[in-house]
């Protein structure tokens, strides 16, 4: 059990080391990388199976008891996040094996991906605020490196924005973590939760938490601090931007969910503010997307908009709403990464990602049309795909809570999402290619990419048709989130030296 809990850290770390050592043999790097990602997926699924039974697993790194050593915690939410991270990571690595002229497809890609995965998984399983900061930095520097991979003026320009704004965010996080320690004397989330629940912390601790949540909001790309995302995601190499789109903002969302549910389990001012932020994020994001004329830019703005849905679930704070947020997280990661992948394939086949310069895919590559339709419709919340259930639960939770405006915004956002998706469909797929047959590019060597995309699309369908078990899991996860006592007990009961 000790081993399984840290395996989300150790597996990608070991893969990173091995791929670095084997970096002169490209085939070995790919094979190791794939094996590592598969192992991570397996570990994540094993954790899900264990967590599904309802027990919260906690371990003290180094064996030192709770406030002194660092706690690692696996509950249903973090187990699910680790598993989904493994899945998206695997898909990314498989996709990257496809033929591509992009200079980013070099030897550094694989170790960096696994470095990023260490950070992502670490953020999901840690129970310590400062340790969370460290994992944020790991995934941040990994993302810097991946974003700029391959170089070029445009990519570098996007990287400048991304790096500077994210550095500000991360420093605010560090500042907040320091203040939180200074005010409460603890960095352990469970013990902080205990102190907050007992009202034993000074006002400054609450203020520090607000600053911390602001930093997370930047990472999660909430309104009004999401500017870095649509300024940078579209410049990266396709697998990189897909990986980012799937995972990175969701780490911020996860952190928001974790901290808010632990420290402020009861609805209060913060939830009120979050509710408005969520509504604004949904609307502004989806409107921004409507103005875009490139595939990845459309998708980037939609990330923002959909993060709003998740935060809506968090802000409503009812069990059903939290379950909706969890379900949305799981569904969104798969779907969003997949859409970026498919956008990349579409660009490969048409020679551009500007909608105006694309076309003809419907007649030429019907398989791609099917593969696009699944995540696109899911994103727009069309039943019976995964996105429908996510949206349905959140709308229902809003209506149950008499949050009429939130429900209306969630629905209106849905129709705009449908508009964006049908725009891509009409322009890139239905419309004939503006350059005629001459504009069509070969699909040679794309087989791994198609595998990756097909697998994720199958997952979307499976989550939609088999929504029952997934929803049960999400509701059970939300129950754990809604009752932090269980989390606290799991950590404090786990003694140490």
């Amino acid at each position, binding site marked *: 059990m*000790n081993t399984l809990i840290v395996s989300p850290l*150790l597996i990608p*770390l*070991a893969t*990173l*080391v091995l791929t670095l*050592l084997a*970096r002169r043999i490209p085939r070995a790097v790919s094979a190791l990388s794939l094996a590592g990602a598969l192992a991570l997926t397996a570990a994540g699924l094993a954790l899900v199976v264990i967590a599904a039974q309802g027990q919260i697993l906690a371990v003290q790194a*180094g*064996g030192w008891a709770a406030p002194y050593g*660092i706690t*690692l915690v696996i509950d249903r939410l973090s187990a699910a996040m680790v598993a989904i991270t493994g899945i998206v990571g695997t898909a990314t690595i498989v996709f990257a094996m496809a033929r591509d002229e992009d200079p980013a497809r070099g030897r550094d890609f694989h*170790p960096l991906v696994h470095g990023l995965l*260490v*950070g992502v998984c670490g953020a999901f399983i840690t129970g310590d605020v*400062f*340790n969370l900061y*460290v994992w944020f*930095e790991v995934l941040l520097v990994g993302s810097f*490196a991946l974003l700029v991979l391959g170089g070029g003026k445009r990519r570098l320009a996007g990287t400048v924005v991304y790096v*500077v704004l994210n550095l*500000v965010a991360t420093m*605010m996080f560090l*500042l907040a973590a320091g203040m939180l320690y*200074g*005010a409460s004397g603890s960095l352990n989330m469970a013990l902080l939760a205990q102190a907050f629940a007992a009202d034993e912390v000074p*006002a*400054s601790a609450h*203020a*520090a938490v607000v600053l911390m949540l602001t930093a997370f*909001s930047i990472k999660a790309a909430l309104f*009004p601090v999401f*500017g*870095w995302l*649509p*300024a940078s995601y579209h410049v990266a190499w396709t697998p990189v931007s897909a990986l980012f789109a799937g995972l990175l903002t969701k780490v911020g969302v996860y952190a928001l969910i974790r901290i808010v549910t632990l420290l402020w389990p009861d609805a209060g001012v*913060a939830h009120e503010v979050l509710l408005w932020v969520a509504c604004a994020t949904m609307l502004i994001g989806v409107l921004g*997307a*409507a*103005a*875009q004329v490139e595939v990845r830019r459309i998708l980037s*703005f939609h990330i923002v908009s959909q993060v709003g849905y998740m935060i809506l679930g968090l802000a409503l704070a009812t069990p059903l709403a939290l379950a909706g947020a969890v379900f949305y997280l799981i569904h969104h990661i798969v779907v969003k990464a997949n859409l970026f992948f498919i956008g990349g394939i579409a660009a490969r086949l048409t020679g551009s990602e500007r909608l105006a310069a694309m076309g003809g895919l419907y007649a030429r590559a019907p398989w791609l049309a099917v593969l696009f339709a699944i995540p696109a419709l899911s994103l727009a919340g*069309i*039943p*019976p795909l995964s996105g429908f*259930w996510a949206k*349905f639960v959140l*709308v229902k939770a809003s209506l149950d809570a008499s949050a009429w405006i939130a*429900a209306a915004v969630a629905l209106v956002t*849905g*129709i705009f999402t*449908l*508009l964006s998706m049908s725009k891509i469909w*009409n322009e890139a*797929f*239905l*419309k004939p290619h503006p350059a005629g047959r001459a504009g069509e590019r070969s699909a040679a060597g794309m087989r791994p990419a198609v595998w990756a995309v097909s697998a994720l699309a199958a997952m979307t369908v499976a989550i939609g048709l088999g929504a*029952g078990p997934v929803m049960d899991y999400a*509701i059970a996860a939300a129950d754990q989130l809604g009752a932090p006592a269980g989390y606290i007990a799991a950590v404090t009961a786990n003694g140490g*030296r």
Partner: protein
Amino acid sequence: MLASIGLIALAMLIAPPLACRMDQRAGWLLALAPLAAFVHFLTQMPVVASGGVITSSLAWVPALGVELSFRLDGLSLLFALLITGIGTLIVLYAGAYLSEHRHLGRFYAYLLAFMAAMLGLVLADDLIAMFVFWELTSVTSFLLIAFQHDKAESRRAALQALLITGGGGLALLAGLILLGNVGGSWQFSGLSPQVIADHALYPAILTLVLIGAFTKSAQVPFHLWLPNAMAAPTPVSAYLHSATMVKAGVYLLARLNPALGGSTSWSTILITVGAATALVGAVLAIRQTDLKRVLAYTTVVVLGQLTMLLGTNTHYGLQAFAIYLVAHAFYKAALFMAVGAVDHATGTRQISQLGGLMRHMPLTGVAVALAAFSNAGLPPFFGFIAKEFKYAGLIELGLAGWITTAVMILTNALLLAAAGLVFVRTFLGKEGRYPRAPHEVGIAMWIGPMLLAVGGFVFGAFNNLAELWLIDAAVQAVSGATVPVNLYLWGGFTPALLASLLTVALGVFFYLQRTRLRRRLSLWRVLWRVSGDMIWDRLLKRVFAFATRIADRFQHGSLRQHISWLVLAIAGFALIGVVASTGDELVWPDVTSPVNVAALLGCLLAVAGATGAAVMPGRVALVATLGASGLGLAMVFLASRAPDVAITQLMVETLTVIFLALVLRRLPPTKLVGSRKPAAKRFHAVIAIIIGTVVSAMMLMTVSQPLPGDIAQWYLDNSLPGGKGANVVNVILVDFRALDTLGEILVVGLAGLAAATLLGAGKPGKGASEGSSDFGSVLLRQGILPLSALLALISLVLLWRGHNLPGGGFIGGLVAACAAVLLALAFGVNRARAVLRVPPVAMLAIGLALAAGAGVIGLLQGQPFLTGNWIFPAGLPLGTPLLFDVGVFLTVLGAVLHMLLCLLEREA
């Protein structure tokens, strides 16, 4: 029931490969699926007709109370028969109509998918399951409308239909959720009308559900998508836009009539909107010159009338609803298919070019004649009964009924005129001018219209048959209470008959005077100018313009604007946090330690240095002042008795300056011209002051009270006994909180990899082979060798003693890196690499492996990750934390070296 949906879905899956293999003959095979379903439903008729219901259910998302429950009552049976029966004919028809199309297989797939969804919609008893199928019909109809995808018109129409029906669908979703919440059940059959009607949310539910139904059934003002959807191939129009999809909205209204109907608002809205729709549709129908569009608008008329009939909620009204539903489905599907056949055979659908087709296409002509009679409401066709009952139902309402009856007479007369256009104008009279020679179509194309048209006659003539098997049960299902049903052709001299005669007379008049009528209508220019389509286009344009404005706020591409807004937002949220958590009073710290003069000086130096770096123009000054600032910080740390932090800060500062110097050396000497604009400067200053003030305030809040908790003391107490080290800070780093450190060296490693790639990009310089010219003299080079060896030794000492005295893996690694830098600068990168033997990347990897491996040792012994394990050879404590520190050392060294060597290789 699920089986019949599944069967059709299965047919959908095999359609594309099948169509590939056997062209249009695939249609005959595929039609077997809906045919089988049709027969299945026929066999259910006795049960349902005798008042029984058949249910089946399958769990789906139990946590949300959603299940795939189906319920076959009179209403669903009626619809199911229409869907599968007409569906069978359409599949046959489509095979012939699109026989040459290269995507015929896809067409079958979409059509069958739609059929399955539609069937699910009318059979579902679960609100949410019904909604699932509802949305699926929207999506599949999108695919069908856009089938001729290379035409911009098709794409636009498809998008319009999707957005309008999809938007309505979202309102419906909200309505259904509220309905389920209020009505106490997620099954249509379990809703309790009384509770719903009395609930405060009833108006909201009604509005939302009606928006959903009206968009789907093309009621004013959402009607515009339907005529545009005629861009679809004719089989689609015949199926979706006459008999099935557009009826989904009407179906939903009928289904919810027991639960929601009965209120005044229900009746008022339905009758008003329905009447308006019928009128608008009729007026627009008569203006059309394209036969298919004429039919499209008459469909709008009928949908309006059906809505209106549901609104009456009278016995006659509900009977009329059921009769008219069937009658219309029969004749409209027949007419659409026939018009498609005409189009197929003659190459045109323009009324002005058509005429005298009877001699070329006698079979189609007969079918059209029969269907048109039913359409015109002439006895003894089913359409006649429908019309009679319509009037009877409306007249029952009293005064409002008379007004609506008048509207109805007008619209029905226009319908009759339209029917005249379709039959008389097209098939009789003089020969038209055709693009190609007309000929009769094949059996697959005329059998459908013929069967349906004859059906309209049979049901009219032998109306007790229809009553017994279909209409009675359907009416009971719609009404929710028992309604006596009795169909007849001849009901005596009633007001309804009078209205009927008036309709026929007026209709014939309209047909004969159609040219003048059209001219009259086109005089209302203003009216046509504000057509729905134009409003739609304007609306979309507005939305996109607004969206662009929003997007521009975030896509200005200016880093400074990004930073400005980000920082302001952070400050804003932080301020909210401060105010919300403290109320409005800020406490000045009363518990604080005495002033430490050295630390104060350090603070001053740090701030002064930073200020210098912020305003100094030259690069050298910039680097120097920045270094001074860092030095000041190190002073603060040292003065505060934190030697490890101070040393680390110093080492980092040194390396920072080295890196800066190396990078800046190669940069173009040009300075940026000009400075920021004064206004921008002021704005930026304000931002900086705001964030600085907020941060200071929060810091003051934080330190205003004593630090709670005993953690510090615990570390001091346990460092030696537990961690075997006297340097508590180091023990925390490599043992108590070693996981942080593991993450941290990973950051260093990854940054090293990433930065090296960037630093090493560009043209290779001669730094690779030779040393730097700054170290030109041999003497100097000879001096550097021992110096770097000394530094390397010191670094090892620092590493070793770190556990007990200031030092450790970080500091040691940084010092060792300095040694390597000296070597590389003096002798060139290649020599340095040779001396090192191990490539920096490998060193980095091994370091990470060592650090993680030191943690794994604990795991292997069943302890938590990173648990320290010690042995004491000769009393000397050796343990995994030390191994961990070696890993730190190697990672830091490897990463810094990797970056430096890559940078130097590109140096001139």
